[in-house]
């Protein structure tokens, strides 16, 4: 099972790079949904022994991260009518190179970290690189939706970290899943903000000005 889990982790990294390199929001969302699905599958792949804990964790993660949140995001881009990221503060090429640097740093640092009980030696570096690329996306992109995606990646990285400790601190991961609620709030915020920008206000009282 180790090789399958490693494959899943490699795909997680690749999906990070897809988010980093694409300007189409729908592609970003697809990538992040794939990442969620992989994250949901990881507990099964890492701990072949089925327990209520792993099953609930895996299915819960997959449903939230690969189902609900992407759907929510798609709804948000439909509502806000944005398709593409505007040209980001630093170019795609530069962010790609930054991502590659982050990758090198993550793999360089991971072996030096004082962590024990790690199922596969890929888990920690992949978690690190996901956090770092999430931060890059979060700080360099202009559109709020991409920033949400960046936040999701950041959180996925933390989730991966949590997996390394899931045997000892069983509820860490569940708490991490709870963070998704924040994402929901974020997305609501974007849509509301968008309405705000269109109408200069979200106050419903001002809606009365719309009558003729």
């Amino acid at each position, binding site marked *: 099972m180790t090789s399958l889990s*490693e494959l899943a982790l490699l795909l997680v990294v*690749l999906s990070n*790079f897809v988010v980093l*390199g694409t300007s189409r929001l729908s592609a970003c969302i697809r990538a992040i949904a794939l990442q969620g699905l992989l994250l949901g599958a990881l507990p099964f792949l890492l701990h072949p022994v089925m327990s209520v804990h792993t099953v609930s964790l895996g299915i819960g993660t997959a449903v939230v991260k690969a189902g609900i949140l992407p759907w929510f995001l798609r709804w948000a881009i439909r509502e806000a009518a944005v398709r593409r990221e505007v040209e980001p503060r630093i170019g795609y*090429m530069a962010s*790609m190179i930054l991502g*590659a640097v982050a990758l090198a740093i993550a*793999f360089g640092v*991971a072996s030096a970290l004082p962590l024990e009980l790690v199922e596969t030696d890929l888990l920690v570096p992949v978690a690190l690189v996901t956090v770092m690329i999430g931060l890059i996306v979060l700080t360099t992109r202009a559109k709020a939706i991409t920033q949400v995606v960046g936040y999701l990646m950041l959180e996925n990285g933390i989730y991966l970290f949590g997996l390394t400790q899931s045997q000892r601190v069983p509820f860490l991961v569940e708490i991490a899943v709870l963070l998704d609620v924040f994402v929901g709030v974020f997305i609501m915020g974007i849509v509301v903000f968008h309405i705000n920008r269109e109408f200069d206000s979200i106050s419903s009282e001002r809606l009365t000005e719309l009558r003729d």
Partner: protein
Amino acid sequence: MTLPPLTAVIALLVVVIAAPIVAGVVSRTKAIMAGRRGAPLWQLYADLWKLMRRGLVYSTTTTWMFRLAPVMLVATTIVAASLLPLDGRGSLLRFAGDAVAFAYLLALGRFVLVLAALDTGSSFEGMGASREVTFASFVEPGLFIAVAALAVMAHDLSLSAMLGAAPRPTDATTVSVMVAASVFMLALAECSRVPVDDPATHLELTMVHEVMVLDHSGPDLAMILYANALKLALFAGIIVNVVLPQPRAGGWLGIAVLLGSVVAVGIAVGIVESVMARLRLPKVPLYIAASSALALFGLVLLLR
């Protein structure tokens, strides 16, 4: 200095003779995907034959550079082929660091072709030359990342070891696949195929490689077309050798594998060309960077 095995010589001859088939396979695949019957597989042979019997037109601005370039292009590509372990065992010319020589021979061919394009003084060909060197500048480091990854796996910087003789680490399957995918994507750029360049385009402003050779005619054009097909065939051989577990069966079987790989990669290129559109030019460096990042990721995995 030991004499190279007979199969290495025959493999070189086979790839030199069979290279035009790869163009036929690509166009046939595209035709089938589009629901047409398409041209026969040996269409390029017919084209080459036709061109060889045509007369030539030379621009009055051109110098000897323009006449030399097609010959140099073919010669560098064939000599580069002799550095590859085409039969799966070893190459005709083999030495430490011959991977560098392979890349730089292809670069020499590109250099003279670009100079020939600038020799015409045409702004269209200048534009094509500029794009060609731009994209090549990004493809080259990507290919060398892949070379570094292969060399690390083989503990040797020679193509014969990387693609044939040396055994790979047991857990390197994933990395091999990643490197092969990366080389495939880079080869599409190097050989001017979709999504970087569209060989079938008919608008000068959008062309990259084709526009560079607008002024070549007759036997000169035949040599350039042939060299391009040969280059694609060589990359096909490389890609399949990266994927296959090493060391693999060499010799006569290796030659069969070579032919199979040319067909397989031809089909893959045809499929890519059918399902993908060409990228906008400013997007191409990003595409190449993404392909290189894939190989870099493979290298990082090896080094951890």
